[in-house]
């Protein structure tokens, strides 16, 4: 990789100030950034490590919401939300592999918004709030397309706050090489409404399948999904599956999620 200046601030304020220079980039768990930089596809002049910022770590209840520090690793989330939010724990516990989960963080994953990442589905499906150093952003407004988010230059995800649904589940069908989702669906049932977030499938990144949400709000059974169809138009088509296949999987995974919860 290209060389860079490396700094490792201890506080969010120091990190934000370090990031204010041109060509500075935050480093969180690095499980995507390191390979990208090794391939010389990213070449920041300065890398600001967020891994020593204690105020960005941890899992706790904040009123009726679950607060997870942006620098919290997948392994920690998997372990510490097992009781409070089992569906999220299960999602975090199946990202990548154990070594990736030791390093990768929720903030890093959400800020990167890889179209095949797991956390964006968990956050969007839960209707989470993304907390940054300057503001709070609803997940619905945060994810803006493949690798695109509402984050401004130098803005970092310091925490994610999750409302806890009555029940939820994450159904993942893996791409056999990368082990990322080929298509995965996060379904959350809040009593009065249902959220369905899909990752891996669309060229536009994570999205809500609103038609299914509406159908499920009044009839939370797999059958409610059976009659729906997903357009293959915007779906990713690649070596591992056509757009039609991903559209089909979206439905199958959603139905399975609902069947498992209903």
């Amino acid at each position: 990789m290209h060389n860079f200046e490396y700094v490792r601030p201890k506080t969010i304020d120091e990190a934000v100030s370090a990031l204010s220079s041109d060509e500075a980039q935050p480093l969180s768990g690095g499980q995507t950034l390191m390979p990208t930089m090794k391939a010389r596809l990213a070449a920041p002049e300065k890398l600001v490590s967020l891994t020593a910022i204690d105020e960005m770590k941890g899992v706790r209840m904040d009123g009726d919401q679950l607060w997870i520090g942006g620098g919290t690793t997948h392994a920690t989330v998997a372990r510490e939300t097992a009781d409070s939010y089992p569906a999220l724990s299960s999602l975090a516990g199946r990202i990548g592999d154990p070594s990736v989960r030791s390093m990768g963080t929720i903030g890093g994953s959400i800020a990167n918004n890889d179209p095949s990442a797991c956390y964006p589905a968990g956050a969007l499906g839960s209707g989470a709030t993304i907390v940054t150093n300057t503001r709070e952003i609803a997940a619905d407004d945060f994810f803006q397309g493949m690798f695109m988010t509402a984050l401004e230059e130098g803005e970092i995800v310091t925490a994610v706050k999750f409302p806890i649904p009555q029940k939820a589940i994450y159904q993942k069908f893996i791409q056999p090489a990368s082990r990322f989702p080929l298509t995965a669906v996060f379904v959350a049932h809040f009593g009065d409404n249902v959220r369905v977030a899909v990752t891996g499938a669309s060229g536009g990144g994570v999205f809500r399948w609103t038609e299914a949400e509406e159908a499920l709000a009044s009839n939370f059974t797999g059958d409610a999904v059976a009659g729906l169809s997903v357009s293959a138009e915007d779906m990713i088509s690649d070596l591992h599956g056509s757009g039609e296949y991903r559209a089909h999987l979206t439905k199958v995974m959603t139905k399975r999620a609902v069947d498992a919860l209903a």
Partner: protein
Amino acid sequence: MNSIKMRVNGKEVSGTVEGRTLLVDFLRKDLRLTGTHVGCDTTQCGACVVHVNGNPVKACSMLAAEADGAEVGTIEGQANADGSLSVIQAAFQEHHGLQCGFCTPGMIMAAASLLKENPKPSEHEIREYLDGNICRCTGYHNIVKAILAASGQEVAPPAMAAE
């Protein structure tokens, strides 16, 4: 350049590294601990798995500077104090859980982490835990067997001669 210090296999070490120096390169080139291997560049194969502060980590995807102050364990530190093979290492030998040996250090380190978290894993749990460790030689059959055996669970002995 960054000055770093860490404990590797219980010994204090220090060095001066560029920002871009990966932990695996610090181990292999600066410390000459060449047991940790590099088999890919996309954080997938797991030949480079080491322990950082007790957790399994892919040393090819962590900057050396990020390990400043950390407790690092590598394959070279896995044997017993008298140099004899650890329970896991011995089980890999007993059950032929390695062939070319290249993925083996990462496998041993991953297996050690697994058994620390889950002392009696099922076959399925072992396979799940090894999702980030690729072996091209063994078909995983004997690796899984070795880890089952290392956890004290009953497995068939290695192949007997045909009569």
